[in-house]
């Protein structure tokens, strides 16, 4: 899925996007049917005068639950207009708690949230008509049909799309007359997405939008989210699919234990991580015979090399193998991925120093 996607060049890893007024309509990527479209933004007069232009602004946000559990521990970030921002993290990292404060469902225990420069919790009436929300889990009466559900939601949404159009968007037209309780998990996700899109929101909050979808449904949803973003919609999504964040997000933040551990563009986040070469040595060839320049870790015959210089080390390895006529089994070389960055962070943060994650100390070091 990464094939068609171009990671946009964003200026920095700091979360300040300088957006002046002229930038509000500046994101004009043309994509298929969206070409030539001039999207007129919602009424800016509804935003306070001191609004600096970031659609979402989060500062030192904290959320403590009864019993003292600190779900969100002082995070800060901002999302500019038309940006797609992903919050990544394992279960319990604090993603949903964060999104629910952004959506204005819960009041922060500390810090501030601003959406269009307003507090989404207290200024509900001003903020809600401009946002679309997809919760992590359902929220539809099980006895209603799909169409009835969309109609109910439409009656509560300013500028709602016709029900048929909304269902068409998420590929649920054929299921319009089915009761919600008979839908599969993936179909419920699609219905949820349809409702989030119903009012043509300027900001979309999607909490794990593809969880429970099959591969095709996931791809369709990605396609749709991308089109929306290309049309100028600001999107904040949470996910634990790294592929999803890597492929969709302009910028992302990895959360762990209620904090943002690393953030930036997908390229920036992975750039600092080492690439990896893996293979099995044939029986009779000792790891000690490998070139000393390669920082290899061995576990039996399984060798793993972490490197910042993938091309150089790979050439070195292959010419060594050629020279001595060694057959490298299951040879696999890959650049750093978000997944590795993510797993490294998770391992480091759980304090498992002994595991030596990210340093290649696992197993016996055979070459210094």
């Amino acid at each position, binding site marked *: 899925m990464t094939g068609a996607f171009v990671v946009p060049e964003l200026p920095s890893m700091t979360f300040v996007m300088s957006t002046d007024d002229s930038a509000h309509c500046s994101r004009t990527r043309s994509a298929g*049917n*969206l070409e030539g*479209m*001039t*999207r*007129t*933004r*919602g009424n800016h007069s509804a935003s306070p005068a001191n609004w600096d232009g970031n659609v979402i602004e989060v500062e030192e946000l904290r959320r403590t639950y009864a019993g003292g559990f600190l779900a969100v521990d002082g995070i800060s970030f901002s999302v500019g207009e038309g940006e797609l921002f992903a919050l990544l993290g394992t279960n319990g990292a604090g993603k949903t708690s964060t999104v629910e404060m952004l*959506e204005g*469902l819960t009041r922060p225990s500390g810090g501030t949230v601003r959406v269009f420069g307003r507090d989404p919790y207290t200024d*509900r*009436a001003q903020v*809600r*008509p401009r*946002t679309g*929300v997809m*919760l992590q*889990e*359902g*929220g*539809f*009466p*099980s*006895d*209603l049909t799909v169409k*009835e*559900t969309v*109609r*109910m*939601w*439409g*009656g*509560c*949404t*300013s*500028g*709602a*799309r016709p029900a048929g*159009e909304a269902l*068409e*968007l*998420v*590929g649920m037209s054929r299921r319009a007359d089915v009761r919600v309780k008979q839908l599969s998990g993936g179909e419920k996700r699609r219905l949820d997405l349809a*409702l989030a*899109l119903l*009012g*043509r929101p300027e900001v979309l909050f999607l909490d794990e939008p593809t969880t429970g979808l099959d591969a095709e449904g996931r791809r*369709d949803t990605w*396609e*749709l989210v991308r*089109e*929306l973003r290309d*049309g*100028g*919609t600001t999107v904040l999504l949470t996910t634990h699919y790294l592929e999803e964040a890597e492929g969709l997000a302009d910028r992302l933040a990895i959360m762990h234990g209620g904090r943002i551990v690393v953030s930036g563009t997908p390229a920036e986040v992975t750039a600092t991580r080492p690439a990896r070469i893996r293979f099995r040595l044939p029986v009779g060839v000792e790891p000690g015979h490998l070139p000393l320049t390669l920082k290899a870790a061995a576990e039996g015959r399984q060798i793993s090399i972490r490197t910042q210089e993938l091309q150089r080390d790979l050439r070195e390895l292959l010419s060594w193998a050629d020279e001595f006529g060694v057959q490298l089994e299951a040879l696999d070389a890959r650049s750093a991925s978000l997944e590795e960055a993510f797993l490294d962070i998770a391992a480091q943060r759980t304090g498992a120093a002994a595991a030596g994650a990210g340093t290649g100390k696992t197993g016996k070091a055979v070459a210094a």
Partner: protein
Amino acid sequence: MSTAVAQNRETAAEGGTTTRAGRLGALARAEVTMLVRNRTMLFMALFMPVFLILSTKASLKNVDLGGTGLSITEVALTGGIGMVLLMVVYMNLTSSYTARREELVLKRLRTGEVSDPEILAGTALPAALLALVQCVLLVVVGVAVLDVSTPQRPELLALGALAGLGLMAALAAASASFTRTVESAQITTLPMLLISAMGSGLFVPLEALPDKVASVCELLPMTGIVTLVRSGWLGGASGGDLLTAGLNTLAWTVLAVFAVKQWFRWEPRR
């Protein structure tokens, strides 16, 4: 998957900005659909009040109403209005609020433009209308078929019934705060049902009870409503009685609204 993801916002405006009435209507319409599809609840709402009025009438044959100046039919019908309020609005809505919360419907609605009071009111609207229709039917049947007098003070009768609708809905939301599942709603609504049936003059008029018991019963949540309804239809209440009844209803409504603000939960406990 998509052909028209984004459209010009100008054309988007044709859906228009929502109004309070529009939002309430949309919620109420969905709620009616659900009520019709939930056979048990529909049956309870439609036939239980009728059944109870008939059984009240039968059981009252053994009670001495001599001192109250009321006929069995009059007690049964006016009590029946209270019964309708309790069963169609209070019990029904406690289940509905609990069900919507447990299905995350309330939480989902709160992500949208609907305000919190609108969510509760929209959900209550169909049950309230149904109860109102049943009350009107009781009066019509009473006057036309059962030889009960026409309402002496219709404005009092209407006031009692409408205040009752509000109080019952507020109490239902308050009860739902302490109800974990739809099944347990049958238990959590029981105390209110019992104390109202016993002590608020639904079956046996307060006048037929010993004085001391009656004065305690006057403090119960439904007593004011029943007094207003009964004196509105049949007449005969003093200004002092009516004032007490009105204050009682007002106090309980304030209390229930406070409880809802304080304790109502919009999503299930995790």
